[in-house]
């Protein structure tokens, strides 16, 4: 079984971003970029399936600028076998990411695609579900546990009220939640080995996908800031302040 894992290059989760003063977007110059944390979890799960003898090959795909190669290298250092970079400097919306991934799935024929549940920059939480729709495959989103049951996938999901377990036909789409696993750090020898692993370079046009945006960003602005409050000296003072504010009692 081949496993495909799409990995996105995003602003590192520790960075506090700044909105550009001309309101055209956020300032990404000289900002630390990393693999989307949910995608690290996706790669980890795929590599574990390979280590357990269930997967034969793990392919990492990224759609983005030339620098997205670094994100693919990270995936290869964690244990993926090869990479595909779909190079574009355009902003690619989830629907178009999903169309490109669909074409890759048709060419590579994986039985499982593991994506992150959301990218922490745009927080769209769409791509995996869209890919499942386009392929006519079942979707197991927000996964916290994944097991095989014969030729089916038994999947536990994080939902608003707790946990839900589904049985999915294969091939299937899975999106990762935080509790699925703890991703490994790539060791130095594996980082060296990853440099020799192959990465194919493609373009959206190779897959016949027009990445023209459907959504127009009119502006990007700063959120309203909260006013700094006060420090209270004691629990008694805290309670009396809350009573004054009318939120308790």
């Amino acid at each position, binding site marked *: 079984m081949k496993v495909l894992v799409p990995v996105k290059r995003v602003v590192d989760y520790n960075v506090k971003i700044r909105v550009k003063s001309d309101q055209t977007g956020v300032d990404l110059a000289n900002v630390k970029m990393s693999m989307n944390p949910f995608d690290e979890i996706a790669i980890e799960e795929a590599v574990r399936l390979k280590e357990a003898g269930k997967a034969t090959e793990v392919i990492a795909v990224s759609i983005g600028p030339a620098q997205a190669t670094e994100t693919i290298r990270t995936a290869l250092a964690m244990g993926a076998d090869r990479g595909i970079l779909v190079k574009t400097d355009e902003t690619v919306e989830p629907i178009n990411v999903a169309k490109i991934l669909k074409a890759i799935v048709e060419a590579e024929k994986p039985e499982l695609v593991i994506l992150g549940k959301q990218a*922490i920059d745009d927080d769209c939480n769409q791509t*995996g579900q869209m890919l499942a*729709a386009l392929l006519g495959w079942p979707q197991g989103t927000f996964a916290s546990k994944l097991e095989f049951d014969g030729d089916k996938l038994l999947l536990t999901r994080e939902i608003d009220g707790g946990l839900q377990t589904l*049985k999915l036909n294969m091939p299937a789409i899975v999106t990762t939640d935080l509790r699925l696993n703890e991703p490994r750090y790539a060791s130095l020898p594996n980082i060296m080995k990853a440099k020799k692993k192959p990465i194919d370079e493609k373009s959206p046009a190779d897959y016949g996908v027009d990445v023209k945006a459907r959504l127009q960003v009119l502006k990007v602005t*700063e959120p309203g800031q909260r006013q700094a409050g006060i420090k209270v000296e004691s629990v008694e003072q805290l309670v009396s302040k809350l009573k004054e504010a009318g939120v308790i009692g």
Partner: protein
Amino acid sequence: MTTLVFAEHNNEKLNDATAKTVTAAVKMGGDVHVLVAGQGVDGAAAAAAKLDGVKKVLVADDALYAHRTAEPLAALFVGLAGSYDAIVAPATTVGKNFMPRVAALLDVAQISEITSVEAPDTFTRPIYAGNAIQTVKSTDAKKVITVRTTAFAAAASTGSAPVEKIAAGANPGLSEWVSENLTKSDRPELTSAKIIISGGRGMQSGENFHMLEKIADRLHAAVGASRAAVDAGFVPNDYQVGQTGKVVAPDLYIAVGISGAIQHLAGMKDSKVIVAINKDEEAPIFQVADYGLVADLFQAIPALDQELQKIGL
């Protein structure tokens, strides 16, 4: 223009998120219909029919929708989409799960988690964990939209829209519901509670969360947590507040032993009043707190319990 709203419910009862989503849909203009899909949903459908601004309630009552799995729900919506200009759902885990499937089947770019309606085709939504707000305009003929419910007031319940039964859609037969393990609690739900008390890594154990539960019961509050507390197994996953958990905006949010990481703040910084109890006076949570108490929580929380009891809570 006519908009179809997905009703969030647990079959018997309508979830508060539905009334808030109706408000967002009404702001887009035109008629608003609500679809209640589930099994044995008479109660939820009756409640949806009362929501102000709703012109009609559609009911698809079938075992296929008992657990609102994505594939059958998406098929149902796609079947109905021809009569609608917009499909809108709350950004609950159900909405987040099936809506992008609907969007892709209709070849539409979904707009996720809107926080305001600027025009029928223009919306704002937070990006980068709420550190930037994007204003986006859709160029698609149909709109597929999820709503961040904390940004909209609930529609009142004084209406009486007609309720119409509709046939179930196709069963794609791709997946099967097996079981659910839901957290049982008599406390209010996190996303609709007026008061929330949340604990972080500083709580040290699940046992210690009982201290917060005691306070929660005095204040009729819900109990939440940081990711660190969930990862450590102190509390179940559905307690997580934040960018990748639940977004909440209660009247009062009390953060106990939580440092205030960007990802946590993303889920609670729109609360009306924020209280932080932390022993580290440098903790970033104090930058958003209206009232900060620098103290060891193991002293402060029992003291708070006593103080609340003193004032008769």
